[in-house]
C-alpha cells in the first residue's frame, strides 16, 4: 500500500511502544538476560586463532550500500578491527558498494587508533573491489587464496555468492563465522561455516558484543513485537478456521478502518 492506515498505525504504535518501554527499563538498571549466541561468542576465538597462525583476517560485509544490514555489519567490523589491532594482526576488508568505502575506512582507522596502534594500520587493507556482484566475488576469492587468510567473517546481506566465498575459504583451511538476515543464503552458510548467526540474531549482534543496556532493552522489545505478531497470526488462523462468518465480520470491520 502506498500509505498506511489506522490498523497498521495502531500495530506499529504497539510494537514501537514495547521497544521504547523496554529500552527505558533497561536504562534504569534492570538486569536483562541474553541467551548465548555461539556465532558471536566465537568471534574472539576466530581472531585469536588467526593471530596464532600468523595469517590475516578477512571480513566481508555483503553487497548492499548503507542499509540497516550493512550498518549492523559495520558494528561487528569495529569489534573485530579492535581485536585485530589489539593482537597485532591484519584485517582485510574488501568493499562492494562505494558509498560504504569512506565509512569503513574511517571505522577501521579509528579502531587502530583506539588501540594505540595507528602506525600498524594499513589503509590498503580497506579497498573497493567492484560494485558488480561477480567481479567482487572473484576479487574476494583471489584475496582469500593469495593472503591465505586464517579467519573469515561474513556479516551483512549476501546473495548467490555466499557458497562461493565459503567454499573458497574452506579450501585454505580458514575458520569461518557468518551472520546474515538473507534467508536464501542461511542454508549455505550453515553447512559451510563453523558458526552461523541467522535471522534476527544478526540484529542482536551489536547488543551482544557491547552489552549496552539500551541495545539489550531493544532486543527484549523486539521479542515483545514478535509475540504480538505471532498472537495476531494465531488468533486470525483459529478464528478463520473455527468460525468463518465471525472472521468475515471482523475483517469487514477492519476494512472500515481502511485495512
Amino acid at each position, binding site marked *: 500500500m*502506498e*500509505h*498506511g*492506515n489506522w490498523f*497498521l*498505525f495502531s500495530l506499529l504504535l504497539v*510494537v*514501537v511502544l514495547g*521497544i521504547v518501554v523496554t*529500552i527505558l527499563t533497561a536504562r534504569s538498571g534492570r538486569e536483562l538476560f541474553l541467551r548465548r549466541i555461539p556465532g558471536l561468542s566465537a568471534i574472539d576465538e576466530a581472531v585469536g586463532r588467526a593471530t596464532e597462525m600468523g595469517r590475516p583476517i578477512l571480513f566481508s560485509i555483503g553487497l548492499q550500500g548503507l542499509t*540497516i544490514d550493512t*550498518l549492523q555489519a*559495520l*558494528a561487528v*567490523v*569495529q569489534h573485530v578491527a579492535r581485536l585485530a589491532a589489539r593482537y597485532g594482526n591484519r584485517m582485510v576488508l574488501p*568493499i562492494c558498494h*562505494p*558509498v560504504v*568505502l569512506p*565509512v569503513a575506512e574511517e*571505522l577501521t582507522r*579509528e579502531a587502530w587508533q583506539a588501540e594505540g596502534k595507528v602506525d600498524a594500520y594499513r589503509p590498503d587493507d580497506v*579497498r*573497493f*573491489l567492484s*560494485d558488480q*556482484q*561477480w567481479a567482487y566475488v*572473484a576479487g574476494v576469492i583471489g584475496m582469500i587464496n*593469495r593472503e591465505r587468510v586464517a579467519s573469515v567473517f561474513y556479516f551483512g546481506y549476501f546473495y*548467490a555468492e555466499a*557458497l*562461493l566465498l*565459503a*567454499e573458497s575459504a*574452506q579450501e585454505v583451511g580458514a575458520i569461518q563465522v557468518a551472520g546474515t*538476515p538473507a*534467508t536464501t543464503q542461511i542454508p549455505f552458510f550453515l*553447512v*559451510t561455516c563453523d558458526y552461523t548467526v*541467522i*535471522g*534476527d540474531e*544478526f*540484529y542482536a549482534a*551489536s547488543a551482544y*558484543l*557491547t552489552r*549496552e543496556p539500551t*541495545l539489550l532493552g*531493544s*532486543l527484549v*522489545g*523486539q521479542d515483545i*513485537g*514478535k509475540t504480538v*505478531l*505471532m498472537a495476531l497470526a494465531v488468533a486470525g488462523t483459529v478464528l478463520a478456521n473455527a468460525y468463518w462468518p465471525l472472521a468475515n465480520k471482523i475483517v469487514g470491520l477492519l476494512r472500515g478502518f*481502511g485495512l
Partner: protein
Amino acid sequence: MIVGIVKPSASVVLTLAAILFGLLGVYLIGGRLRPTAGRPVRHVAAVLIAVVVGHLVLIGISRYLKQLFRPIAPPLGITTQEYTVSRALARRLHLSQRKGLEITWMSEGGSAAAGGLIPTDVVLGLDGHPTGGPGDISRLLRREGVGVGSLISIRLLRGEQMAEARVRVRRADVLAVYRYHLLLLVALLASMIAWVLAFALLNRLPAGAKKRLVVAATFVAGVFYSTEYFLPAQSRLVWWRAHHTNPLSEWLGPWGTAAQVIAGFTIGLGVINLVLIHGKTIGRLRRGWPNSMAFFAALVAMLVFGIWQSYLPEAAKPDHLVRVVYNYLFDGFYVALGAAVFSVLAFYIATAAYRAFRIRTAEAGFMMAAAFIVMLGQIPLGMWLTGGIDRSSLFAPLRVENISGWILAVINMAGSRAILFGVAVGALAMSLRIWLNLERGAFFDQEI
C-alpha cells in the same frame, strides 16, 4: 526550454539548500539556546525554524533570479526531442538516417513558425547537415557563414512525407544560442560554488555541533518519511490544500532523486581507490603488478569504447569497428566472465554436498529427507521415478512433485514467513534506535 530545465532541478537544489541552511541554523540558534544532550525537542524546534526561514529566503532569491533571466526563446523558437523514424518508413523514403528531432513546442512569433514549420514535424537536416542529436540545431546555427538574415534550408518529415522549408535566421535566434548556454554554465558554476562553500562551512563547525546536526537531520528525515506514509493520499487534516492532497508526497521524488545523484557520485570514490591501490602496485613493482596492468587496460578500454559507441552516430551500425570492439568487451568479457563465475557455484555445491551436508541429529535427518524430496520433485528424473502412480488416483499425492510442492508451499512458506517477521521487527528496532539517537557502539558513539 530554460524554464523547463531550471524548474525541476531548482526544486531539488532549493530543497537541499534549505535543509543545509536550516541545519546550519541548528548551530547558530542552538548555541544561543544551549541545548544539552538528550533534549531532542530543542534541536527539532531549532531545525524547523531555520528550515522555514531558509526556505523563505531562498524562494525570494529564486523569484528574483527568474525575473532576471526571463524565459527566452530557444534557437529558431522551437523545442525538440529525439525521434527515431521506423525502419519501414525509412526504407520507403530512402532515408540515409533514422534519427531526427521532433518539434514538441513552437513559439508563434518565432522564425521556424514564419518558415512554415509546425509542431510534430521531424527535423532531419539543416543545410544538408544531419540533425539527429540534442544541440545539433544550435551547433549548426553557430557555423561559419551563418548570421542574422541568413536563409537556411530545413529538411523535414511531416507525417509520412518528406518536405523542405526555408527559414530566415533572426537576431533572437543567434542571441538565444549564446544566452542559453551561458545561463546553463552560470547555473552550474553557481551551484558548485554554493555547495563547496556550504561544505566548507560545515567542516568548520565544532565536533559537538556536527554531531547535533547529524542527529537533527536524522530525526527530521524520519519524521518526514513516517508522516508522509501515514498521512493518506487525501485527508481533511490538510484542509488548506486543494482536494486535500498529501503535501509531503510530491517531495518524495526530488529527495529520492537527490539521494540517487549523491550515491551516483560515490562511484568516483571507488574508482579513485582502485586507481591508487593498483597504481602503487605497479609503481613499486609489487607482487601481482601484471594484474594491476590488466586492471588499467580493462578500465580504459571499457571507458573509451563504451562512451565512444554511445556518442558516435556511425557506431550504430553493427559492423563499425568501435561497435565491434565494444561488443567484444561487453559480451565477450563482462557478460561471459560474470556468467562463468556464477557457474562455478554448481561445482562448489557438489563439493559442499559431499563434505559438509552432515546428518548428525534426527532434525538434520528430517531436513535432508525434505531436501531430497524437493530436489527430486523439481527434476524430470525425479518425476520419472514416481511416474508410475496415476495422477488421478488416491495415491497421486505421493508423487514426488506433489510432495515437493506441498513441502515448499506449506512448510517452507511458514518457516520463511516466520523468519521474515523476525527480520522485519529487528530492522524496525534498529531504525527506531537510529532515528531517536539511541544506537550505541561503532561509529554511533564517535565524535565526527
